[in-house]
């Protein structure tokens, strides 16, 4: 079941360029999605930029674990248990945006337990 809560704009308004969603996968895991669309007159809006962040609730606080982002003109991934520095994903650079999103989905679906566990370990060491 998918349930969502409209927090800013009700349905039926003219859409803006930006959309932001908090998606709770569980009470301890969340995906935050920021989407930006190009709106050219006479054409359908096209998804141009996105930032997808997986956060986990660890030790009572929400922690960003990994982010996939192409807002700065190139696709990169940030693994927050290491550093906030973005690491470019150059191999995926030429893919169209929907395919980039799918590549991010595959990476997160495959690796989230390890990513979460690495973040937990880093916090224990601190």
């Amino acid at each position, binding site marked *: *079941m998918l349930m969502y*809560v409209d927090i800013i704009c009700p349905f039926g308004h003219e859409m803006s360029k930006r959309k932001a969603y908090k998606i709770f996968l569980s009470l301890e895991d969340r995906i935050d999605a920021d*989407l930006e669309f190009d709106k050219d007159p006479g054409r359908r809006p096209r998804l141009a930029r996105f930032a997808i962040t997986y956060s986990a609730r660890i030790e009572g606080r929400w922690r960003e674990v990994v982010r996939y982002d192409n807002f700065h003109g190139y696709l990169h991934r940030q693994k927050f248990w290491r550093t906030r520095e973005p690491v470019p994903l150059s191999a995926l650079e030429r893919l169209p945006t929907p395919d980039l999103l799918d590549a991010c989905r595959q990476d997160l679906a495959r690796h989230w337990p390890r990513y979460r566990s690495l973040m937990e370990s880093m916090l224990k060491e601190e």
Partner: protein
Amino acid sequence: MTESEMRRRIDTAFEFLGRVADHPDRFPDQAVLFLMDPSEIASALTKERLRILRELEARAYPSLTALAQSLGRDVSRLRKDVMALERLGLVAFSRSGNRLLARPTATGIYIPLFTGKGRGTRRIATRPARTRAAHRDGSSTP
């Protein structure tokens, strides 16, 4: 929750984003979504928590104590519920001196008919098809 269930939910989340990318005009600009089992949603959004949200939407309360009095509830139990709502992003806190003020971040709750089982899952009605002519003259098809 199993790892495969978590993977399914990640897939569902991205499927939702794909739908937004395809038809952005059909979706709100900002939203909080719960990709959880009906039982998990029911335990997260209890009747009392929904009452709290409705009350916070209707009036600004100077403190959690005032809110608890208005709802006829024990303050410590109410505080736990408000904290749970804050974890879900449905309530935001601010401070006024020693007082904790809660305000709702949501204007309503929507449950779309989307189950994350892929597109085109809607089933065709099992009632026998009738031709237009048959429909017009009231006769039934075999």
